[in-house]
C-alpha cells in the first residue's frame, strides 16, 4: 500500500511550497546585482537539487533490487527516475529563462554547470528506451538497475567536478568564499527546498499508488477472465508481483 499518509503529505507539500514561494516573494530581499530576476533561484535551484537527489535515490533503490531481487525496488527506482526527469525538464526550462534574462542567451555551451546537467538529463532520458528494448522482464529489471546505479554514481561525481571547475558564469548558491546567500534569502530558499522535496515525495507516492492500483486491476481482470497464466504485454514499466 502506497496510498497511506498520502493526504497528509499532500497537505504538507501545499503548505510548505506556498509558504516558501510567499517568503521568496515578500520576505527575501532583492539581489543587489540581479534585482527581481534573482527570484527565479527559489524555483530553479530547489528543482535541480531535488532532481539530482532523486537520481541518487533511484540508484539506492536499484542496489536494493539487485540485492533482494524484489520487483518493488525496481518499480521504486523506475518511478524515482521518471519523477526526476520531469523535475530535470523543469530545471532546464527555468534555467534557460534565467540565462536569457541574466546573460542574454537561452543557453551557454561553455558553462560546465549547464552542460553537465544536460548530459545527466540526456543520460537518464535513455533509461526508458533501454527498458523497453529488453523483452525479458527479469533481464529488463536487472539491466535497468545496473544502469540506475552507474548513472547514479555519476551524479555526485559530476556535481563535484563542476564545483571544482575553475571558470564559470553560473553562480554558486552555497559559496562560502564570497559570502553566499543573505540570511533572509537563505530562510526562503531552505523552505522552498523543503517544499520541493516534499512535492517530489508526494508525486513519487502518487505514481507508486497509481502503478500499484493498475497492477491490482490487471491481476483482478486476469482472475475474473480465468487466464491467470497470461503474460502481461510488453512495457518499459516494471510489473509488480506483490506489494
Amino acid at each position: 500500500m502506497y496510498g497511506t499518509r498520502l493526504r497528509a503529505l499532500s497537505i504538507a507539500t501545499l503548505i510548505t511550497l506556498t509558504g516558501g514561494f510567499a517568503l521568496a516573494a515578500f520576505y527575501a530581499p532583492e539581489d543587489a546585482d540581479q534585482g527581481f530576476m534573482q527570484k527565479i533561484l527559489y524555483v530553479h535551484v530547489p528543482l535541480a537539487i531535488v532532481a539530482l537527489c532523486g537520481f541518487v535515490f533511484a540508484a539506492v533503490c536499484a542496489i536494493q533490487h539487485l540485492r533482494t531481487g524484489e520487483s518493488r525496488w525496481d518499480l521504486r527506482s523506475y518511478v524515482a527516475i521518471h519523477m526526476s526527469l520531469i523535475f530535470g525538464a523543469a530545471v532546464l526550462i527555468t534555467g534557460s529563462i534565467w540565462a536569457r534574462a541574466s546573460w542574454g542567451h537561452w543557453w551557454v555551451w561553455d558553462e560546465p554547470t549547464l552542460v553537465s546537467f544536460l548530459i545527466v538529463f540526456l543520460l537518464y532520458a535513455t533509461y526508458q528506451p533501454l527498458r523497453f528494448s529488453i523483452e525479458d522482464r527479469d533481464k529488463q529489471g536487472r539491466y535497468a538497475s545496473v544502469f540506475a546505479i552507474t548513472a547514479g554514481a555519476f551524479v555526485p561525481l559530476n556535481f563535484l567536478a563542476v564545483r571544482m571547475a575553475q571558470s564559470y558564469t553560473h553562480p554558486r548558491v552555497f559559496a562560502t568564499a564570497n559570502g553566499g546567500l543573505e540570511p533572509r534569502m537563505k530562510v526562503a530558499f531552505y523552505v522552498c527546498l523543503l517544499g520541493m522535496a516534499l512535492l517530489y515525495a508526494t508525486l513519487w507516492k502518487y505514481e507508486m499508488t497509481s502503478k500499484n492500483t493498475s497492477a491490482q486491476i490487471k491481476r483482478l481482470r486476469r482472475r475474473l477472465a480465468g487466464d491467470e497464466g497470461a503474460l502481461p504485454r510488453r512495457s518499459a514499466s516494471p510489473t509488480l508481483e506483490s506489494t
Partner: protein
Amino acid sequence: MIVGADVTLPDNAGYVVAAYLVFLVLLLIYVVIMATKLSRFERELTELNEIAEKRDEERTRSAA
C-alpha cells in the same frame, strides 16, 4: 490618506513570471495525466464489477 506606493514591477519581471509558470504548467500537466489515469481505473473497475456480478448471477442460476 493613502500614500501612493510604487507597485510597478521591474522590466524583467516577465522572465520571473515565466519561470514560475513553467513550474505550474508542468504540475498541471501532471494533474491532468493523473486525472486521466484515475478515470481509466474507475472505468476498468466498473467493468470488472459488472463481470463479477454476471458471474454471481450465473452461479445462482446454475445452483437453482
